[in-house]
């Protein structure tokens, strides 16, 4: 486990030194602009606007980092051959992969936490904080779970295809995962039973990103049930485990030419 932690720490250090966290400046600017504008144009719906805008920014910035850096975690090491000296040490390939995953998730957690803190500062600027605002924290947590899932997907694809295709596959699966409910329930006259069965099957196999979206509840200050928190946590953990295990199997057989 120590070796996983060593790789994870180095991945985090790389992200920090490559100035990945500079996105926080962009986020801060967006939130400051929102705080100034919202007071002028939206009377009574400040919370709705600020929370929606803040959570969307956290999600989009996080997704960009998760997809692009997630894909480069392994491919960059192979392209630059930095991996060669490392894999000649007593490190198993799955330990390297898990370390890379943990390192990026750690970076995303720090990034997301900093953005969430910024969101709360702005929220406090437009209105007094109350207990119902805890829903915003849960929404941020769900975004982080979603990002972990996206990193695991990116890692899996980057283990057996080119970075560009890995980005396309990850983005494609993310978008599909936003419509799993529709896949499951969609009915059409022209749809054959076979197509319907395939769509239904796909809706269960594809990562369900819809479950992680509680932005509306958070923006309206509605509480989020504890069961959903547990369910989403377990779902993300299980799905990430399956993806990382598959990535390990593929990567462990890969020739590093």
């Amino acid at each position, binding site marked *: 486990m120590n070796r996983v932690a060593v790789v994870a720490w180095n991945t985090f250090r790389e992200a920090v030194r490559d100035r990945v966290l500079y996105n926080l400046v962009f986020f801060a600017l967006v939130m400051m602009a929102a705080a100034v504008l919202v007071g002028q144009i939206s009377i009574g719906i400040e919370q709705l606007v600020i929370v929606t805008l803040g959570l969307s920014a956290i999600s989009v910035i996080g997704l960009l980092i998760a997809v692009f850096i997630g894909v480069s975690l392994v491919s960059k090491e192979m392209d630059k051959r930095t991996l060669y000296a490392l894999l000649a040490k007593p490190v198993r390939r799955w330990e390297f992969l898990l370390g890379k995953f943990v390192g990026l998730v750690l970076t995303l957690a720090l990034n997301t936490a900093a953005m969430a803190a910024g969101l709360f500062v702005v929220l406090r600027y437009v209105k007094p904080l109350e207990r119902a605002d805890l829903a915003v924290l849960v929404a941020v947590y769900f975004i982080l779970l979603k990002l972990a899932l996206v990193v695991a997907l990116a890692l899996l694809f980057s283990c057996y295809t080119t970075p560009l295709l890995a980005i396309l596959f990850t983005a494609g699966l993310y978008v599909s995962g936003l419509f799993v409910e529709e896949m499951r329930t969609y009915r059409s006259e022209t749809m054959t039973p076979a197509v319907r069965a395939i769509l239904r099957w796909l809706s269960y196999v594809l990562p369900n990103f819809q479950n992680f979206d509680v932005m509306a509840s958070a923006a309206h200050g509605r509480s989020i049930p504890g069961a959903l928190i547990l369910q989403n946590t377990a779902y993300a953990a299980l799905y990430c485990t399956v993806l990382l295990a598959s990535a390990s199997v593929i990567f462990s057989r890969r020739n590093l*030419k």
Partner: protein
Amino acid sequence: MSSPAIEIENLTKDYPFGFLHLKKKTSLEGLSMSVEDGEVFGFLGPNGAGKTTTIKLLVGLIFPTAGTAHILGKPISDISMHRDIGYLPEQPYFYDYLTAAELLDYFARFHEFTDTERRERVQRMLKKVGLETARKIQLRKYSKGMLQRVGLAQAILHDPKVVILDEPMSGLDPVGRREVRDIILELKNEGKTVMFSTHILSDAEMLCDRVGVIVGGKLRGIGAPDEIVDMKSHGMEILFEYGGGDANLRALLSTATQTGKRYRLQVPDEQVYATLEQLRSAGARILSMTQVKASLEEYFMHLVEADRAQAAAVEVSGK
């Protein structure tokens, strides 16, 4: 007798290529050889001969299509074997956002050292490869030679019993090459087994107990440099100064290479004394005499040319 440090049996590596990967290119074909404990072994071959493929197979970066290999008695698939080997990749490249000290510290963490031991080793290695003063500079600012030195430091950081170096002298200036040679000799004196690939034959001749020559994915010769190369004398080379004038020397001089007043003449062993007598009586001044032997380079070139001729013949016959 102790068992070999590296034992390779029938190691083969094919790379699939083409549409659906139906065709295959053989990079290494049935390689069988061993490297004895404590010896310095040079792995020679032209570019694309299969040297790097062999080394990558040994350190587990690629997997064999057929055959097996053992290092210190353990199969190469056994991860615990990696505790006892050090590896320098060809044209090494490391995390350029780290300093040399950070990189070595990072790699040292994969071994079971205490914090004090780790710090002490990192210091010692930086000193050994002459990077003590550059320890706090990020690797992105390092020259190729400096990166090679960092590569060497990380390979021997954990005091491995077997050190495998892929082209350790490539890209280095004469000073750098000398330093690498010294490190290899130091490792030998410490009782380590060193296997290194190179196409700089003089380095191999100078350092290696034995060499293996690989051409076209096949091992073509293995043994001590003076064993595999024909060590029979091919005569003597005489270097002399001569001002001219003696008509009897005309025939002899026509076979010599002239640079100003200096002549270089190669004569068979049985004619050495007669030639010397002839030169003496004509008033020539003998400067030096050297025995002419086939060098490792000639042997190497002979193998490479034979391989090319064979490849061309196969191409012509269409087989």
